[in-house]
C-alpha cells in the first residue's frame, strides 16, 4: 500500500495504542457472534481457498446519523484460524505464517468512518498483523434486519507479504498470491458478547 518510515510506524502504533485506550464514545452495540463471521480467501496456484477465524471480538459504536463519530475495534484471535484441514490449521500457527505464539492477535481500529451514500460506508484505520501495521480501507454496507439489529458487511484486500505472513519458502507469490481478500459480517444482537 505505502511504505512507512520507522517514525511513521511508531506514530501509527502510538495512535493505535491511544485509540485502544480510549473508551468508545456513543452507543456501543452488542455483537451476536453466532451470526457474525470473519473469513478470507487466499489463492494458491490460482485456487481460491476460504478460511475463517472462529474467535474474535468486535466493539462497535455505529451512528448512521453521524457516521464520522462511529468507531470500531476488532481483535482476531489468530490461533482460531480454520481452513478445514487440521494439518494446515496447525502449520499456520507457526513462525512462517501467523507466529501466533509471539503475535496472538490481529487488531483493527478505525481511525475514520465516512458515508459513501446508499447505505454504504467506509472505515479506515491501521490493521496490525504479526507486529506490522498497514492502513486499510474497508468499504461496508449496513442493513437492518427484521428485529432491528444491524448487519455490517464488508470486504477489503490486504497484501500478506506486507505483514510478513508466509515467510521463507512461502514468499513465492506464484504459489500463494500476495493479495488476500478479507470479508467480515458483524451482526449486532442481544447474545452475550463472548466468543464461541
Amino acid at each position, binding site marked *: 500500500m505505502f511504505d512507512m518510515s520507522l517514525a511513521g510506524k511508531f506514530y501509527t502504533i502510538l495512535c493505535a495504542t491511544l485509540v485502544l485506550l480510549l473508551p468508545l464514545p456513543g452507543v456501543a452495540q452488542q455483537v451476536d457472534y453466532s451470526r457474525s463471521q470473519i473469513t478470507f480467501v487466499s489463492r*494458491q*496456484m*490460482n*485456487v*481460491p*481457498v*476460504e478460511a475463517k477465524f472462529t474467535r474474535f471480538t468486535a466493539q462497535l459504536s455505529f451512528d448512521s446519523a453521524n457516521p464520522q463519530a462511529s468507531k470500531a475495534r476488532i481483535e482476531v484471535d489468530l490461533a482460531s484460524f480454520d*481452513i*478445514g*484441514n487440521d*494439518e*494446515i490449521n496447525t*502449520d499456520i500457527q507457526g513462525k512462517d505464517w501467523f507466529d501466533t505464539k509471539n503475535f496472538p492477535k490481529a487488531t483493527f481500529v478505525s481511525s475514520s468512518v465516512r458515508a459513501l451514500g446508499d447505505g454504504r460506508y467506509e472505515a479506515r484505520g491501521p490493521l496490525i498483523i504479526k507486529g506490522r501495521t498497514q492502513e486499510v480501507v474497508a468499504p461496508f454496507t449496513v442493513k437492518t434486519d427484521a428485529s432491528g439489529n444491524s448487519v455490517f458487511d464488508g470486504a477489503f484486500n490486504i497484501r500478506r507479504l506486507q505483514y510478513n505472513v508466509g515467510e521463507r*519458502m*512461502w514468499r*513465492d507469490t506464484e*504459489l*500463494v498470491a500476495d493479495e488476500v481478500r478479507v470479508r467480515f459480517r458483524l451482526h449486532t444482537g442481544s447474545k452475550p458478547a463472548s466468543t464461541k
Partner: protein
Amino acid sequence: MTDDRRAYSAVSIGLHWTVFVLIIAAWSLGLYMADLPLSPQKLKYFSWHKWIGVTIFFLAVFRAVSRLVHPPPPLPASVPPRQRIAEGVSHALLYLLIFVVPVSGWLYSSASGVPTVYLGWVQLPDLVGKDKALAEQLKQTHILLNMVLFGIVCIHAAAALKHHFLDRDEVLARMLPFLKK
C-alpha cells in the same frame, strides 16, 4: 462380412498409451504427495495431480466417443467364450473407472473446500460444498476406487501378456502394432 482389421486405430492406440502414462503419473504423485508435510512442493503436486486427473477424464470422454466411431478390432477366433465375457467385463470396468476415479477426486477436493482449477486457469464448479465428514468419506472412496482400478489394470496387463507369450496370438499386437508378425 469378415472384419479383417487386425489393429486398433492409430487414435485409439495413442489415447490408450497416453491415458496409461497419465494414470501411472497420477498414481505416483498421489501416493507420494499424500503424506508429505505441508510445503510449496506439496501444493504443486496436488495441483498437478488434479490437472492430470481432469485430463484423464476428458481423454476418457474422447476415448468413449472414439470407440463408438472406431469399434475395436475383433478378438481372434481362438479366444474361448468365457474369456470373451471376461474381456467385456474388464474393459467395461476400466472405462467406467477412468471416468469415476477423476470425478471422485474432484468431489473430494470440493468437499475439502479446495476448488479444482484446471491448469491454474479454468475453475471447475464445486458440486458439493465444504464438508469435513463428507471429504473424509470421499477420500476413502477415491482411494478404494483407485485400488480397484489398480487391480483391474493388473488383470488387463496380465491378460495381454498371456495372449502374447502363452497363446501367441495377436491380441497385444492390436495395441502395439510393432509386435505384429
